[in-house]
């Protein structure tokens, strides 16, 4: 039985500006992921990857179709789905006024990690991302890469059955990237864990059991990297060649960065006080 099952999924964002009719971010998408798989979810900017993940994580209600994780429906059984999953978000999601340790400790609390285990588990993930000596620093003072590392540590803390990684390695140096993958692979061999990964790094995609390429909310290709190469090109081709061949050469509009919003907000907050 597949651990993730998506059938005819549709997500339409309601139009907000100037009476626009709404935007279909995910358009009749169907696929499934097997337990224990490392599944690559690829696509150009704005293809609908984060939107799909948000539906699977119960943060967004789909407009049509259905999505199941670990046998539970993402809408009707959201509570059970949440018990099975973990996620490393693409956008920042730390509490920057807390220390690294506090961020992890609070995560451990809401994921019901037994108090006896909390300390050792937090220590080991902090070790993994090389932040052990900064555990008591306020996160606001971290560099961008350090914040990212902390988010990765947090996502791996509670050892979920299904882990969603939404561009986990953006902004990371090669050392950290390698360490993170080592940790993830050791996690995979010691625990039964399914990984659902979006990434723009093709060498990370090459390591996946299967990859799905999505564009404009629609499935473009699905299969093992070797299979895709054989099907669309030659075995010597890189996944990047295939990706560009299938999704075209033009550059996609980047959605407005959430970091700009954050900056504006901070300014307001200062003025208000």
């Amino acid at each position, binding site marked *: 039985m597949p651990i993730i099952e998506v059938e005819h999924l549709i997500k339409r964002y309601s139009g907000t500006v100037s009476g626009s009719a709404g935007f279909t971010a995910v358009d009749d998408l169907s696929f499934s992921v097997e337990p224990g798989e490392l599944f690559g979810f690829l696509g150009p900017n704005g293809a609908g990857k984060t939107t799909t993940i948000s539906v699977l994580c119960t943060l967004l209600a789909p407009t049509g179709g259905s999505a199941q994780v670990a046998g539970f429906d993402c809408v009707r059984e959201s509570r059970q789905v*949440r018990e099975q999953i973990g996620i490393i978000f693409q956008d920042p999601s*730390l*509490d920057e006024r807390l220390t690294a340790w506090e961020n992890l400790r609070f*995560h451990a*609390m*809401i*994921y019901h990690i037994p108090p006896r285990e909390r300390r050792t588990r937090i220590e080991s993930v902090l070790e993994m991302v090389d932040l052990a000596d900064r555990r008591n620093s306020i996160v606001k003072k971290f560099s961008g890469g350090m914040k990212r590392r902390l988010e990765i540590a947090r996502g791996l803390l509670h050892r979920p059955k299904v882990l969603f990684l939404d561009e986990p390695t953006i902004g990371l140096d090669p050392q950290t990237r390698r360490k993170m993958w080592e940790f993830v692979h050791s996690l995979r061999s010691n625990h039964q864990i399914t990984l659902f990964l979006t990434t723009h790094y093709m060498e990370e995609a090459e390591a996946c059991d299967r990859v799905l390429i999505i564009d404009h909310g629609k499935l473009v290709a699905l299969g093992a990297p070797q299979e895709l190469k054989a099907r669309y090109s030659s075995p010597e081709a890189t996944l990047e060649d295939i990706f560009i061949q299938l999704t075209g050469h033009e550059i996609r509009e980047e959605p407005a960065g959430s970091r700009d919003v*954050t900056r504006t*907000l901070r300014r307001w907050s200062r003025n*208000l006080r």
Partner: protein
Amino acid sequence: MIDIAAIQMIWLRDLIRFTRDRAQILGAIARPVLWLLIMGFGLGSSFGRVGETSYLEFIFPGIIALNLIFASFLSAISIIWDREFGFLKEILVAPIPRFSIAVGKAASGSTVSLLHGLVVMLFIPLIHVQLTLGQILLALPLMYLMAFVSTSLGILIACRMTSFEGFGTIANFVIMPLFLLSGAVFPLDNAPVWLKIISRLNPFTYGVDLLRGVFSGVMHYSVALDLSVLFFCAAGFLGLAVMAFEKMD
């Protein structure tokens, strides 16, 4: 339904953030100073006495209410903050019931708000209001109850707001009327009927009445009525806040 660990986490987090937020602590001190100075000494000098009490004694419970209401809303509004900075996602995706999240938020907001209320107590020696320890201890649970009512109301509003810009509007059209029309700053005995009606519909009228009863023994309504209104509003607003929370994505 009740997830103790989740409630604990939300409560602890807000308390830690409070102790690190110097601006907030400063606000907690500055607000009563301003009101006590300007209203208490300024208005009081031309107002004289209210019934048998001095004006300062009269508005003292009102200033406590002001700090409670203001801090509660500020605390509840941090939900919008958490949404903009992304931390809300971390909470919403966790395997904890929304009900517990809302209860935790109400409890933590009320606690922080109670601390803001306690700050006002520090001014007791300066304004010649005679209070016994017993009176102060009796006031604490009542203050928490008032804080709980306004925090729940604040959460309810925050869940429906999409940007922080709205806070100014909330402050002007919710906090200030709630405060001014609770009998906190001036007695409503001689006010026009429509004002009296509004003040009767304002839950904080009953909270201020209770505090005033504890501090000076002068009350407008019965203790039973005051308490039932407050408990009823606490339960009602919390219920609505939970519902709003469940609908939010």
